């Protein structure tokens, strides 16, 4: 059975692993050059201080990397569409399943070998490509220091994407029994689930860390608001930057409160009787001084600023939710587990369905 599966798969496998070998050669040649350049241009200038010019020049060399990242993003989907979906759909569509399943090989073994061989090849092609890209781009990633933007193009998660896309394709082909609709369904569902996981699941796989800080309103001279609620280190993944009121309700996003534009462009409006309303939040608990709010040189007066600061500190706080860089690999592990688990569930389902649907 393994020999038949290989005979049916060998042309596709040859193309895929051939392409992988070509990429490996290119990366093996250019990778060491990149490392050399890193140690000759970036490292010495870092030692001296400012080196934005050198790093920009270094990072600007990543044209090949951009192409590879694109390949790595689409490879699992392509595998699901071209290896997964036709695996059963073509047999069912052309009727050859009647030939295959009436030889002396039990159907569950037939399916196990097919899933095993082609599934393993799917994971191997994608995984090897990911490991090669991760190795090759490590100097550039170190300079960029922003690991979460390339989260799905590095490390171990592509293994999971490939396994899931393949199993999804097989399942779609089994249920739809037609190759082309199964391919389309695989692509749509795979892309959909990837987006959903990226937006709604990945940020919360580990409870995000929070930094709560006071909001400082524009001071005398109309200086910009407090930016203390920035991420503690540059590579961290900021999930949200919210302003909340005393009750914990969100009253602003990304430094915008009420109608005040920009980062903490806070607006007050008179509420009579010497009181002020912090727009978008509510009435200030403290009284504002009666004298002119505008200082002689333009901008708020010192007394007004003091009262405004008191009001803002009482009424709102800034909450920053983020995943620190140190959680990069745990998050990779969890996401791999999610997609790998989904792939196993789909594979189990295909065995169950095969037994139920066909004797």
């Amino acid at each position: 059975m393994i020999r038949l599966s290989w005979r049916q798969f060998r042309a596709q496998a040859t193309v895929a692993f051939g392409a992988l070998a070509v990429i490996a050669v290119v990366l093996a040649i250019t990778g060491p050059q990149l490392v050399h350049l890193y140690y000759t241009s970036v490292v010495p200038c870092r030692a001296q201080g400012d080196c934005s010019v050198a790093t920009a020049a270094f990072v600007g060399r990543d044209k090949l990397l951009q192409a590879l990242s694109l390949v790595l993003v689409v490879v699992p989907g392509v595998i699901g569409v071209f290896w997964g979906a036709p695996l059963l759909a073509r047999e069912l569509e052309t009727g050859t399943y009647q030939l295959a399943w009436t030889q002396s090989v039990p159907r569950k073994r037939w399916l196990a070998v097919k899933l095993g061989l082609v599934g393993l090849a799917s994971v191997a092609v994608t995984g090897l490509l990911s490991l090669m890209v991760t190795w090759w781009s490590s100097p550039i990633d170190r300079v960029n220091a922003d690991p979460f933007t390339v989260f799905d193009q590095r490390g171990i998660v592509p293994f999971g994407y490939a396994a899931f896309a393949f199993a999804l394709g097989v399942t779609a082909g089994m249920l739809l029994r037609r190759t082309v609709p199964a391919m389309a369904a695989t692509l749509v569902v795979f892309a959909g689930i990837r987006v959903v996981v990226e937006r709604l699941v990945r940020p919360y796989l580990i409870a995000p860390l929070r930094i709560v800080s006071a909001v400082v309103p524009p001071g005398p001279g109309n200086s910009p608001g407090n930016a203390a609620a920035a991420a503690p280190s540059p590579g961290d993944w900021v999930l949200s930057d919210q302003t909340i009121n005393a009750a914990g309700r969100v009253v602003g996003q990304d430094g915008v409160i009420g109608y005040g534009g920009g980062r903490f462009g806070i607006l007050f409006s008179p509420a009579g009787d010497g009181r002020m309303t912090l727009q978008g939040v509510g009435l200030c608990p403290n009284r504002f001084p009666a004298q002119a709010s505008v200082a002689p040189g333009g901008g708020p007066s010192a007394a007004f600023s003091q009262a405004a600061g008191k009001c803002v500190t009482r009424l709102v706080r800034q909450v920053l939710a983020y995943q620190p860089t140190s959680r990069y690999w745990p998050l990779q592990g969890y996401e791999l587990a999610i997609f790998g688990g989904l792939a196993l569930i789909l594979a189990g389902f295909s065995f169950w369905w095969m037994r139920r649907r066909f004797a």
Partner: protein
Amino acid sequence: MSAALAARGLGKQYGRRWALSDCTLDIPQGRVVGLVGPNGAGKTTLLQLAVGLLRPTAGTIEVLGRPPSDDARQLGQVGFVAQDTPVYSALSVADHLRLGGWLNPRWDDEVAQRRIGQLGLDLKQRAGKLSGGQRAQLALTLAVAKRPELLILDEPVASLDPLARREFLQLLMAAVAEHEFSIVLSSHLVADLERICDYLVVLASSRVQVAGEVDGLLATHRRLIGPRRDPKALAPDLQVIDASHTDVQSTLVVRCDGPVHDPGWTVEELSLEDLVLAYMGRARQQGSASDRRLGVLR
């Protein structure tokens, strides 16, 4: 010896439609069995149930004494040539023989090579480029070289031209003579089966209409022609299968275990085709009668 194929109350339902219902059969081994019926009668369903490609909704089926199951031994005993004789179009003839060897422990490569040689098929030819007749022969070769005890063929000649049809059936019979397996072969044309079958099953309206040895069936069925009369007023040992009347004359197809003594009838023998047509006609009348009853109920 266990039956080649035994069914008890076998039925298969697709959605709300029964493709096969209440099928009870006992086909002995060592026969060439013709399964005949109009298109959509349930022939393919019955055969796919027999090889385990489908699972019954009702009743039981046993093949060579055991229910069809997903194990290597049972699968190895039954050869199957599916309708339209599917083969892998991207693989060559030689690849097909190789896959037969890989997938079947009892594979007889010498038989396979010899048959392909006799057919004059090019081993390097892709199966997708073969003609319909050649493809059917390739599928048959795969099934025969597997050395089954029972070979099941679903309309193997339906899409072939008359010459290819005759050639296929001749080679099939040669294979039976050489390897001595039982055959169940379906067709919607009696002419295909008449020459080769010694056992006949008529399937129509998703039910078995009649089943038995061809000689026995021919010996117990007669056509009666005589003055017009009510078929209900016949002798009790005559079972009317089909009746047609003109103003003055009645023509009946009857089943009778002994000779017909009533001198009022002219008694004629039936051809196998007439016999099959009579049962198919009865099935259709019963079908439309039950449709009418349903119409009244609605």
